Each structure stands twice: as structure tokens, then as C-alpha cells.
């Protein structure tokens, strides 16, 4: 057995989950609260601080005033609150559901190339040939947590929330899956690392001028890529149950939808699952449409440690832009009605995505036959 491989894989998994993803989820919650506060003319969390931390020169005042430690306080509170299990819930499923929401969100990260190379290690946990299919498979498993939460709560609002969410997620999965097919038609591969490498050379699909060498093809396919990206973006909002598509937990109608009956750490798991899903969706968008770790000057896979770290930084930076977008849109648009949501999914996006596949295939055929 190749022990080197095993050790480095374990190391990568541990680092990505515990050093990157978990803190990122925690601080995404803080970012959400801060940005929401600024948009609503408030200041947001700015109280929590550790003793003596203000004594550090220069950065000390910032560390005490910007709510930097708020995620830790939130996490501690979630653990210490009373874990209440209502009567008449179906206990096994009630306990299973939060875990089932959280896990798929983390599993999705496995195939995302979050950097090029670091030393001689590829910066992707699992470089699968069927990369994107794996992602969609795992994402589709995420429905179970919500269905079971709705079913196990044995109460009306969670049930309605669960049913709504299931229908919504399955519907938009189809639009989402179809929207990315043009990308794979152009790239000719399902492997996400290969897709990123191709984009690094011939232009990002959504921004073809960000390229090492300009080609006519990428400009001709720009409209198709933009439609692809647009459908993917909107579907990602629907898949992660974010506003304007947060119908499963629309608080004005369903109290809190499927997580009405949950409290303390179980609720926190649902909450973290949502943010982990947002991170995964942002990663997917960056990887598929915005060139992953690449920048025009940094298009070749890194061969020094510094360049490797730079690539990871570029990837994380691009991802954070999308996270801010996710958070910002929450305050921009009101919630859709349920029939509008279904109408948008089935009668606008699915036909549009199908037409997009057809047009892309035609353009590719014409270009390649020359």
C-alpha cells in the first residue's frame, strides 16, 4: 500500500475540513450578521472579546470591537443550550436528520480543486474522473436530511416545509445539472482539475478575456457560458434554500419550516449545513465558470510552495466574492411565491438550459468541422 498517498490524503482531508471549512462556516455566519447589519443601518455583533486581547498593540482594538470572537460564543451557546426533544417525534429520524444535512455539504468539497500544487501534492482531495457527477450525486443526497426532519418532527409546519423543500431541490437539481453540460461540452472532460487547467489557458468560461492566450472560440461561446452561469447561480440559491428561494423555512408562513422543532446543537447543525452548502456552491461556481485557482498571470500549475499558496489564496478570494453575493442577495429581493418558484424552474430554466446545450453543441460542431 502506498503509505505516502494515505498520509497526505488524510492530511488534506483534515486540513480542509478542520482548518478551512469549519472556520469558514463559522465566520460566514459572522459575515452574514455583519453585512445584514450594515445593510439595515445597524452595527452587528461587536461585543464578544477575550480577556487581555485588547492589550495587543495596533490590532488589539479591532479584535475587541468587530465581533471577531462571536462565532466561538455562538458555538458555545449552541452546545450548552438545552437539547429539547419534543414528545411524539420519531426519535431515530429526528436525531439522524441534522447529521444527514451536514454531511453531504462537507462531502461535496472532496472533488473541488482548491489550488494547483503544493510541493508535489495536487491540491484536491479526490481527483475523480466523474467529478461533477459525484458532486451532483452527493448534493441530491442532501434532500434526505430535510425530508426526514420534516417527517420526523410529526408536526404540520415542518412537514409542509420538508415537502416544499424536497420538491424545490429536486426541481432545481435538474435545471442545475443541465446548465453545466455546455461547460463539459466545451472542456471535453468531467474532471474538475482538467476543467480548471483548461480555463487557465483558454479563458474563464464566464470571463473569456481572463486568459493566457485569447481564442475566438471562447468569445463565440461567451453568451452560452453566461446563460449557463446564470442558471447555475439561480439554481444554487434554490438548492441552498437561500432567499429569494427560502420557501422551506419561510418564517412568515411556516414558522421556521423543517427546523421548527429543533433546538440547540441540532439546530446549529442545520444552520452550519446551510452555510457549508453555500461554500460548496461558491466553490463549484468558481471552479466551473471563474477559472478556479487561476489568474491570467498565474496560469500554470505551481512548482514552488509560494506559488501554490498563492493559488490557494486566489481560489479562496474568488470564493469569498460569491459568499458575499449569497449574503447580499438575501436583502435585495423579496421571497418568491411557491408557484412562481416552480414556474421559474420548470418552464423557464429547464427549456433555456436545453436550448443552451443545443446551441453550444452546434457552435462547437461548426468550429471543429472547419
Amino acid at each position, binding site marked *: 500500500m502506498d503509505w505516502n498517498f494515505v498520509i497526505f490524503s488524510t492530511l488534506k482531508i483534515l486540513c480542509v475540513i478542520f482548518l478551512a471549512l469549519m472556520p469558514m462556516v463559522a465566520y460566514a455566519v459572522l459575515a452574514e450578521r455583519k*453585512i445584514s*447589519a*450594515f*445593510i*439595515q*443601518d*445597524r*452595527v452587528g455583533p*461587536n*461585543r464578544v472579546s477575550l480577556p487581555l486581547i485588547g492589550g495587543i498593540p495596533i490590532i488589539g482594538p479591532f479584535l475587541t470591537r468587530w465581533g471577531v470572537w462571536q462565532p466561538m460564543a455562538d458555538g458555545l451557546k449552541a452546545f450548552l443550550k438545552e437539547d429539547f426533544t419534543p414528545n411524539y417525534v420519531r426519535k431515530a429520524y429526528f436525531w439522524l436528520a441534522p447529521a444527514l444535512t451536514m454531511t453531504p455539504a462537507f462531502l461535496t468539497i472532496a472533488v473541488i480543486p482548491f489550488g494547483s500544487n503544493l510541493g508535489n501534492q495536487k491540491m484536491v482531495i479526490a481527483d475523480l474522473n466523474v467529478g461533477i457527477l459525484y458532486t451532483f450525486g452527493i448534493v441530491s443526497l442532501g434532500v434526505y436530511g430535510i425530508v426526514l426532519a420534516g417527517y420526523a418532527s410529526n408536526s404540520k409546519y415542518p412537514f409542509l416545509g420538508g415537502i416544499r423543500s424536497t420538491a424545490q431541490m429536486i426541481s432545481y437539481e435538474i435545471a442545475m445539472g443541465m446548465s453545466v453540460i455546455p461547460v463539459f461540452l466545451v472542456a471535453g472532460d468531467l474532471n474538475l482539475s482538467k476543467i480548471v487547467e483548461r480555463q487557465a489557458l483558454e479563458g474563464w468560461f464566464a470571463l473569456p478575456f481572463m486568459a493566457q492566450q485569447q481564442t475566438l472560440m471562447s468569445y463565440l461561446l461567451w453568451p452560452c457560458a453566461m446563460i449557463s452561469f446564470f442558471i447555475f447561480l439561480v439554481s444554487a440559491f434554490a438548492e441552498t434554500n437561500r432567499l429569494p428561494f427560502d420557501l422551506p423555512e419561510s418564517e412568515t408562513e411556516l414558522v421556521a419550516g423543517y427546523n421548527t422543532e429543533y433546538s440547540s446543537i441540532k439546530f446549529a447543525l442545520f444552520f452550519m449545513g446551510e452555510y457549508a452548502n453555500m461554500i460548496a456552491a461558491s466553490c463549484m461556481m468558481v471552479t466551473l465558470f471563474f477559472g478556479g485557482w487561476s489568474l491570467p498571470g498565474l496560469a500554470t500549475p505551481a512548482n514552488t510552495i509560494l506559488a501554490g499558496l498563492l493559488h490557494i489564496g486566489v481560489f479562496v478570494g474568488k470564493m469569498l466574492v460569491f459568499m458575499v453575493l449569497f449574503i*447580499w442577495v438575501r*436583502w*435585495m*429581493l423579496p421571497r418568491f411565491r411557491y408557484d412562481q418558484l416552480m414556474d421559474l424552474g420548470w418552464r423557464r430554466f429547464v427549456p433555456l438550459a436545453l436550448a443552451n446545450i443545443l446551441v453550444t453543441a452546434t457552435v462547437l460542431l461548426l468550429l471543429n468541422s472547419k
Partner: protein
Amino acid sequence: MIVQRKPLTFWERLYLPAIAGGFKVTWKHFRRTLFGGDNAAKQTSKGYYPEVPWTVADGYRGAPYLLKDQDGNTKCVSCQLCEFVCPPKAIKITPPGDSGLKADRSNAEKMPLEFEINMLRCIFCGFCQEVCPEEAIFLQKDYSLTGLTRSEMIYDKEKLLALGGTNAGIQKWKHKLEEAKVQETFPVKL
């Protein structure tokens, strides 16, 4: 009346103008708060809340307390209207009953033996103030009610009276008399 839902125009169905409008509004507020430092806390007082007390605006509905009249007597006559009207059932009044507790003022028959408001249940709606015929209970400006136990948050008569203080200026029957006089002249407001 049935309002017909207007069909959306092409631009509205694209949702794009709405998105642009939403971005404009949110960006304006975001910029003003983050870079201008101009937020609600700054506008109403010199700093942020726990250090700098918040300036309470007129008409703010804080915690309901019991009032005494100008002679220091309990105004409440234990009519229990507030207990009846209270939506979350936060008020509990024990009438004097057989204990024979007389009011400590001459123009009333009785006063409550016990008057409790559960501040954990109170929703500060102001119904009790509105319904009180004696003007004995008023929503005041206290907004920061804290306690370490649940029982601590149930305020009894002594505490409510002590917190409420005296308010001689409000004399309901005088107002009623003025209102009646005004109404006799039939002022026609156009």
C-alpha cells in the same frame, strides 16, 4: 373589494430591473453604515448601547408599572380590566376579597391585595394602559429588564409601585370632563 392582479410587463418578468433596484438600495445603506459610520446608534446618541444609555423616544412602550397619585396613594382599584385584556395573560391580580383591604385613598373602594406582572410574558402592547379606567398602569421607558431566575422576573405590587413612581399630572376624570365640555360645543373639524 377585489383588486385585479396586474399582468407583469416584459421588463418586470425579467426580474433584472428589480435586482438592480434592490442592489442600489442595499448598497446605499451598506456604504452609509460601513464607511460613513452613520447608523441608528450614532444618530440617537453619542455611542453604543451598554456604555452609553440609549435615548428613549417619546411614546416608547417599555415595561408597564403601577402609579401612585400625588398623595402617594395606590391608584389601582382592582377592577381587573387589565388582567382581562392582557393578550399574553401576563397580569395576575388578587382582589382584596375577605381580607377587607380598603383603598388607601378616600375616593376609591378597594385596592388589589396582590398585583403581579410576569415580565417574561409581557409583550409591551399597552392594552393595560389603554383599558385602565383609573390611569393606574402606564407603559414606561424601561427597556432593559433582566434577571437571573424566572421568579425574579415576576414583579409584585410593591416592586411595580416603587418602579412606577408618582404621576400627578395625569388626571383622567379631569380630561374626561374637558372632553365632555368640548363635545358640547360640537366642534366641526373639516
